[in-house]
């Protein structure tokens, strides 16, 4: 199996693992980590496609690779916003729970 196929298939599993964690873990921080794992799976899959596009003397297609650099930076920014949102939630409600608050009569 070629290196790009191996990593493309790995990426598919990473997306699945991340998706599972996103649903199954109750704590928002754990959901955030799982979401990052899922995102990295998408990145690796895209990177494997870039490697498949090796041509014209380049070892990989530079266009998806450039987009990947952009994507990694934007993913970090989104993670930072989420962390700030989470800490603010705890500051205000003193709880990290995402469950529906009990209905008030």
């Amino acid at each position, binding site marked *: 199996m070629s290196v790009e196929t191996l990593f493309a298939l790995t990426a598919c599993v990473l997306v699945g693992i991340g*998706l599972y*964690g996103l649903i199954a873990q109750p704590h928002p921080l754990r959901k955030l*980590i799982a979401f990052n794992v899922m995102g990295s799976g998408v990145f690796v899959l895209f*990177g494997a496609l870039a*490697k498949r596009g090796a041509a014209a003397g380049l070892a990989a297609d530079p266009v998806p690779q450039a987009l990947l*650099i952009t994507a990694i930076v934007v993913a970090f920014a989104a993670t930072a916003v989420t962390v700030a949102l989470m800490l603010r939630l705890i500051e205000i409600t003193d*709880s990290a729970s995402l469950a529906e608050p009990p209905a008030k009569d």
Partner: protein
Amino acid sequence: MITTVASGAVVALLLWLALWTVVARDAFLAVAGFVVYGLLLALVWVRLAGIDVALTEAAIGGGLTGALLLGAVGRLRRTEGETAAEGAGAGTRALAAVLAMGVTAALVLAVLMLPEPAPTLAPLVVPNMPATGVGNPITSVLLAFRALDTLLEAVVLVIALIGVWSFAGDRVWGGRPGPRYQADPDGILPYLARVLPPLGIVIGIYLFWAGADHPGGKFQAATILAAMWMLVQMAGLGDAPRTDHRGLRAGIVVGPLAFIAVGALGLWTAGSFLGYPEGWAKPLILVIEVALLPTLVLVLALLMNGPPSRGGAR
């Protein structure tokens, strides 16, 4: 043969770490796993011939994101027990597992049915690279062929920072972000914070400059410079800046503004937004990169710092 075995080992470790971050009992363990996972991903990028991506992944994906999550874990500790009781039931977990496996199976099917030969833009990039005067194909994509993406990314970063700042309470708006770090002045942290920044600044500027023709570039450079600044802050040698400081705010927006100005200049000189007139590509790219560097360093570091938390309006 050896490379296949090495790739297999990397894949096995990667999947194990991914599982670990998702099922680990403790959030701290999950974050620790995620940091190692990020570094391992950098190895994957090397195997996939993306040295530039590997540098970004190691610096931002593993390094900055890891540090950010570690900081959050410390402050979220006490809420962990509380949500543990809300854990998904066995039924939900089984459904989640089925859904995850379904998505994975669909993706695997898509990978196995990829078209041959693979579509690629490399034959379009290579012959047009001399026109940009840049030797690194990734840099020429980022700042010439797909410059609009990079412009929007710089804008997204600034918006993300505004988003983080807006989580501040009214009373601390404009104040300094994060805690004022205290460290033992004779300890190892202040020592490292004095020894490492000069080296880090040289390496950062080298990566920035080398990015034109070799792997590297402004994102990787900005991350190293931002990390050095964080180190100085965490060692208690310098405080985070006030977020209502005019110079700071000017530094944050200078990159996108210069980028837009160069783009608008293209409308007039080259007939399209972000077009470069012939022979002027390299100098204009350099103007954009130099203007983006302070923006990236400030935004990355301030995103790590978080919303203003003390010393409100003056």
